């Protein structure tokens, strides 16, 4: 067996050869399981990209029909400009909201669906650690969706800009302002996605993933009711809404996220990233998010089909 096995890398069981075979692929393919796991999430949940794309498509259609139509039907040039610029903030907001909704529903099902359909037994039969699995699932709302949202919003708004510019040029109006503000808007969007959607919302997604890995059924109720209960108890016991205010701040992004910026047409110089980075709420939230994710990793070890 020894002579044979040294000649052939086939199915030999020589212990030394086994050692080397264990080591080699581990070193090479450390990130491959993670990449494959993320790809698998996209296969299972095409809504992650279909939903934002569909909303982007509808937005473009709406802009094409309503805004351009309205702009052309008015003869007042100032109003025409306003009509063309107005929908940008709204379009961006709709697409960001879509990303949040998709992220919430995805996270609530991420560690629940695999137990419900028993496929967890298949996933666990492969050399993918619980850490890799949970991180790959967490990366969907925390990395992939924000990146995707940014890309889709920028692409959508570029098309809207091109269409709007044509109308403005035909009307003999200046297009420079609309393009500079669109550029600013993209920067603001990026800032908001990183600060609010990723860093500020991280504990929310961590919590949702933990509940989806823990609840046997009705994951949504388990995710929402404890917080409502705390609010209710606080209200009854102390007649205050502090906890509810704290939750509200967590959802809206808090005052730190984009202070003083009312619309995406406001200048980037109004941003105060240092104030955001020095707010305790940010760091407490990140620590809590890490704790939730660590608990979800630990929990998955014990979980099987439900």
């Amino acid at each position, binding site marked *: 067996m020894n002579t044979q096995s040294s000649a052939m890398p086939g199915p030999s*069981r020589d212990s030394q050869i086994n050692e080397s075979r264990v080591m080699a692929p581990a070193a090479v393919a450390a990130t491959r399981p993670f990449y494959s796991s993320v*790809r698998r999430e996209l296969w299972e949940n095409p809504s992650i990209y279909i939903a934002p794309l569909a909303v982007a498509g509808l937005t473009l259609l709406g802009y094409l029909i309503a805004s351009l139509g309205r702009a052309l039907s008015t003869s007042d040039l100032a109003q025409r400009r306003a009509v063309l610029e107005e929908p940008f903030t709204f379009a961006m907001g709709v697409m960001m909201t879509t990303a949040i909704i998709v992220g919430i529903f995805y996270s609530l099902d991420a560690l629940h669906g695999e137990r419900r359909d028993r496929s967890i037994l298949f996933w666990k039969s492969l*050399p993918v*650690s619980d850490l890799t699995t949970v991180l790959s699932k967490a990366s969907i709302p925390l990395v992939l969706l924000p990146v995707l949202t940014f890309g889709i919003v920028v692409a959508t708004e570029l098309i809207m800009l091109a269409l709007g510019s044509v109308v403005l040029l035909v009307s003999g109006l200046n297009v420079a302002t609309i393009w500079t503000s669109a550029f600013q808007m993209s920067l603001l969007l990026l800032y908001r996605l990183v600060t609010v959607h990723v860093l500020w919302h991280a504990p929310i997604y961590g919590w949702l993933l933990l509940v989806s890995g823990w609840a046997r059924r009705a994951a949504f109720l388990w995710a929402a009711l404890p917080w409502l209960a705390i609010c209710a108890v606080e209200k009854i016991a102390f007649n205050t809404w502090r906890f509810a205010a704290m939750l509200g701040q967590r959802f809206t992004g808090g005052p730190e996220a984009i202070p003083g910026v009312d619309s995406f047409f406001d200048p980037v110089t109004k941003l105060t990233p240092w104030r955001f980075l020095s707010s305790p709420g940010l760091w407490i939230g990140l620590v809590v998010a890490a704790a939730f994710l660590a608990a979800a990793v630990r929990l998955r070890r*014990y979980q099987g089909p439900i």
Partner: protein
Amino acid sequence: MTVIEAHGLRKAFGKTIALDGVNLRVDEGRILGLIGPNGAGKSTALNAILGLTQYQGELRVLGRNPWDERDQLMRDVCFIADVAVLPRWMRVSQSLDYVAGVHPRFDREKAEGLLAKTDIKRGSKIRELSKGMVTQLHLALVMAIDARLLVLDEPTLGLDILYRKQFYDSLLNDYFDRTRTILLTTHQVEDVQNVITDLMFINHGRILLNCSMEEFESRYLEVSVRPEHVAAARTLKPIHERQVLGRSILLFDGLNRQQLGALGDVRTPSIADLFVALMGNHQGKPAEETRGTGR
């Protein structure tokens, strides 16, 4: 080399004891059939070996602690838990891509080759495949992994006889090479009588019998006793007696073939018959599916 070694393996679910101090040793190159009635502790034992459940006692699989090192262990261990676990939303091609992406020992070409022998289309979703095809796919994925231990928990449940035969033929011809080890549980014991090299009966979390098939064949003999010899045969302490078409079939443990030949036709019993005999003697009721398989 020892692939699985367990000492005093225990597992309780509340007051139900699923494993009651199991000692187990499986060497490389063996095909062990773990046979027992429903609720005997088979699946619990397999889950412990696969790192899916916690346990008390000592357990080493390929030198690793399965509970603490599941993901590492799964580089060398494959398992098919039952036919329903492949994700139904996945496409066949995606399942190949995914396993290729996460498993360093997966040979995609081999899997493609195995699938080419079936009617499974690459673009089909798993939910569109028949039960037999899902098993074929799972087996193709698993056989393309160069693993050292393969664990099969009721792999052929709900399949017709053709698929079952094909499954074990494929396993023996295209996969097993005496350096791999297979651990399987099934209720369809007649399917595996000529597949396994070792036999283990388990009931109420305890091991009732643990022997190689050679031992099984030399130790247990079944005699279809001629009517005039029945009384004499009974004095030899058969471990089980049943009536088939008016003849008494007696099962003996540890008697020699020549001695028994004088009483009637001697043959090796089926695993199912021995199972019924031993389960009947050990308080537990004989399992339904193994009853009445005598010829």
